[in-house]
């Protein structure tokens, strides 16, 4: 298995743990990731709301950079994934816009035919392409005893993406059942984390973050699993502020699902980027699992 890899800006900075763990986990599972050469920012949510043509052209450049040896592009960040996928669809459905984007790409000596690259989310690849048998076979540290709350966020489950139920996704739940974890089926797993609302109106953002933390806490989760850098940032970095605002005392570690998947596969926790999160995850993981053997593998 071989995929073109688009890490996106977040994975180079705030979410370096995601990038680190993605690379380590996929390497362990025998999946080859070839990072796009000279990729650029996907524009997150802002570009599209400012100027659709510019946003589409900027993103289309990344699609055009996928070489002929690859027909599948994987993006772990929810926003990157959505933008790449949306752009491919926009270009296929709006010939007039495609002409303009074509001209922009041509100026850089590039071209792109809509549909050539199949944009996939990382979870889809792990769940569908790698599959339960291959993953289960590589588990050396079952996650039994650890209560995990899978958090999908609002972007990757949009109907356009099609690989899970948009209203009540279950694939991450299922994957962690393969790993032996106690999966918490809590009701807000596809609700919004507030996104950039923290920069606009803190009280609104804090309320959205509190709902997620509270529900996971009521369901006695030990750790929340994220697959979007924005979600992880909001739930982790703002947890203290949320506690201050509401007088609560949440202390929930927020990690990327690939980090914990890596633990199950026996990868050293240091290689998985643990320690970068503000609410430390290591103590709870070590205490719930058999501490001595965690990370003892490769």
């Amino acid at each position, binding site marked *: 298995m071989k995929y073109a890899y688009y890490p996106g800006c977040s994975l180079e900075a705030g979410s370096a743990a995601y990038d680190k763990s993605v690379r380590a986990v996929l390497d362990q599972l025998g999946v080859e990731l070839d990072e796009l050469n000279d990729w650029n920012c996907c524009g997150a949510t802002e570009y599209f709301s400012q100027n659709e043509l510019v946003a589409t052209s900027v993103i289309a450049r990344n699609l055009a950079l996928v070489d002929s040896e690859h027909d599948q592009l994987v993006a772990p960040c929810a926003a990157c994934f959505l933008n790449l996928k949306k752009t491919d669809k926009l270009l296929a459905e709006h010939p007039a816009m495609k002409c303009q984007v074509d001209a922009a790409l041509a100026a850089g000596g590039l071209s792109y035919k809509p549909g050539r690259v199949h944009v996939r989310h990382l979870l889809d690849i792990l769940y569908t392409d790698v599959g339960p048998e291959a993953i289960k076979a590589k588990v050396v540290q079952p996650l039994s005893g650890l209560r995990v709350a899978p958090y999908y966020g609002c972007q990757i489950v949009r109907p356009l993406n099609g690989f899970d*139920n948009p*209203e*009540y996704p*279950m694939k991450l739940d299922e994957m962690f059942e393969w790993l032996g974890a106690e999966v918490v*089926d*809590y*009701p*807000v797993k596809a609700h919004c984390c507030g996104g950039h609302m923290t920069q606009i109106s803190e009280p609104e953002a804090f309320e959205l973050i509190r*709902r997620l933390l*509270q*529900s996971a806490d*009521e369901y006695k989760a030990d750790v929340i699993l994220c697959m979007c850098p924005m979600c992880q940032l909001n739930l982790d970095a703002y947890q203290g502020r949320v506690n201050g605002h509401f007088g609560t005392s949440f202390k929930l570690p927020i990690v990327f699902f690939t980090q914990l998947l890596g633990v199950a596969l026996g990868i050293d926790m240091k290689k998985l980027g643990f320690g970068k999160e503000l609410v430390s995850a290591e103590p709870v993981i070590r205490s719930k699992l058999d501490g001595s053997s965690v990370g003892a593998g490769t």
Partner: protein
Amino acid sequence: MAEKVGVYVCHCGSNIAGKVDVEDVAKWAGENVKDVAVSRDYKFMCSSLGQKLVEDDIKEHGLTRVVVAACSPHLHEKTFRRACSNAGLNPYLMEMTNIREHCSWVHKDRAAATEKARALVSASIERVKFQEPLEPMFVDVNRATLVIGGGIAGLQATLELADAGYPVYLVERQPSIGGHMAQFDKTFPTLDCSACILTPKMSEVGQHENVTLLTYAELEEVSGSVGSFKVKIRQKARHVVFDDCTGCGICVEKCPRKVLDTEFEAGMGNRKAIYMPFPQAVPRVPVIDTESCIWFERQKCRACEKLCPTNAIDFDQQDELIDIEVGNIIMATGWEPFDTRKIPQYGYGRLANVYTSLEFERLCNAAGPTNGKIVLRDGKTEPKSVAIVHCVGSRDERHNPYCSGVCCMAALKLGHLVVEKTDAEVYSFYIDMRTNQKNYEEFYQRLLGEGMRFVRGKVAEVTDAARKPSEQGKLIVQCEDTLVGRQQRYPVDMVILMGAIEPQRDAREMGLKCGISCSMDGWYTERHPKLDPVATMTDGIFVAGTCQGPKDIPASVAQGAAAAARVSGMITKGKVMIEPIVAKIDEEGCSGCRICNNMCPYNAIEYDAEAQVSRVITALCKGCGTCVSACPAGVISGAHFSDRQIFAQIQGALWDAWQPQDAASQDAETVPVSAP
């Protein structure tokens, strides 16, 4: 001798004349097409004056062929065949050209539509010249009828026919007849007890001298055609000898294995491994569920056998195939509820106090598992607030686009029962309130006065994620109240999901066995949605009740009776006409390869091993033409659809490209064959 063709082009008011220049088409055909003796246009050809025009011309001008260019032959072919017959012309020498559905209704450009109408008329003229006089056949109608499905529609059809003195076989796959209606507590809008009005009909069917009741049985195979169907029924092994059982119920009482009853009790109550679905079951003969019986599981127990006073238990009983012959079949196979788990955001199966409407019917039924007490899943707490969610899986493009029709009224009924039996506050979440039958709107108005609260909006989710202390421990229904224009949260104790009515999972397969088709949604397709709602495109097969589309009890009963009336009429007449449009095998040329035998979808071709040729059983042949095109020797011909007729029709359609002098040298009967 050249044929004398009469051509009649219909205006159909403005239906055809609005887009096709009918005068021009008639005039053109009269002046330009060979062998046309008369060509006219007329306002309404199907009127008695229009028909008379045809009749008079046949007599006066000695017409030998007639072409009527009007609507679909589905509508008026019979009309014009009759007109020809009246004037002494064989009706199969008339050809109908559809210039309405196939032309005027589907085109915008008048000139192009007129051009196309010319081509269609020309095609029919060329074809009709090669048509041959045919004589229809008549077959006897067997007086027995098969009714499939023992719900209210099937019961009604059965009783109507049996009371008229005709034998009826009623086949039901469950151990008892009664259908879904037996599960309900009350019926809307009169609120009379469902069982009280249903069970008299059930016992009447059970005891009727003209009814052969086959419960716990499935339709296996249908062959033959209208008037004389041959049907195989699989009688599943009950493991109770039907004729020996007295229905005393000791076996059920003593059976030590209790299991969840997911059928009649909709998972709300238990039954034994040997059971009758409910106390008023007909017949009163239990069945052993081999999946849960201890004997079948680990060869122990046999308590029922030891205690049965008439030795009616038979663990070795096998399925049995029963052959019956009937003249007509009524499909009344009913519906099944939508799986509400498919909408996970409503929490069914995850949140304990979310119920399906069928579960709630059992909960408030006096004969149900709680004796009619409305309590939460803990079995004791009465809810203080109940939410009823409409359109769960109906009017939803992700599941079923159609309206299930009955759920609004059922939701009102359930709401009323909650108000009547508890002190709970009731919220009904609806998209549109549909109460469009006799006394339904009045029922709604009555409930508006009972204090039920109606919220117009589609529920987004049912959740246990509380945001405020007042929501703690509750189920919160999140919904935009579209009348207020605001997102609202309603904390309640119980949620009832009004799931859609869906076709039986095997409806398509059952339909195929009988040769009838389903709509995209899976409902059986009626012959005409307005004017022939219980017949199907297959003669002798009728549909009744919800298998044809969602409907309530009065409508199901009406259809059951209507289907029975149609069958009655056929039996009274005694004979049924069969179209002479059938295939014929030229035995001289038949090599006996038998390729056609297996291709025939109606099993209408038999092989004569002695003569080593295949033969068409005329009474079974539907004239589909499959064998005609499949025969490698080209010795099967389809009456009314011969190669010669089809090629002439093609040439007629291409009148402007086809040069008559080329055709003169070409024998229309010769099909090009490549040299060996």
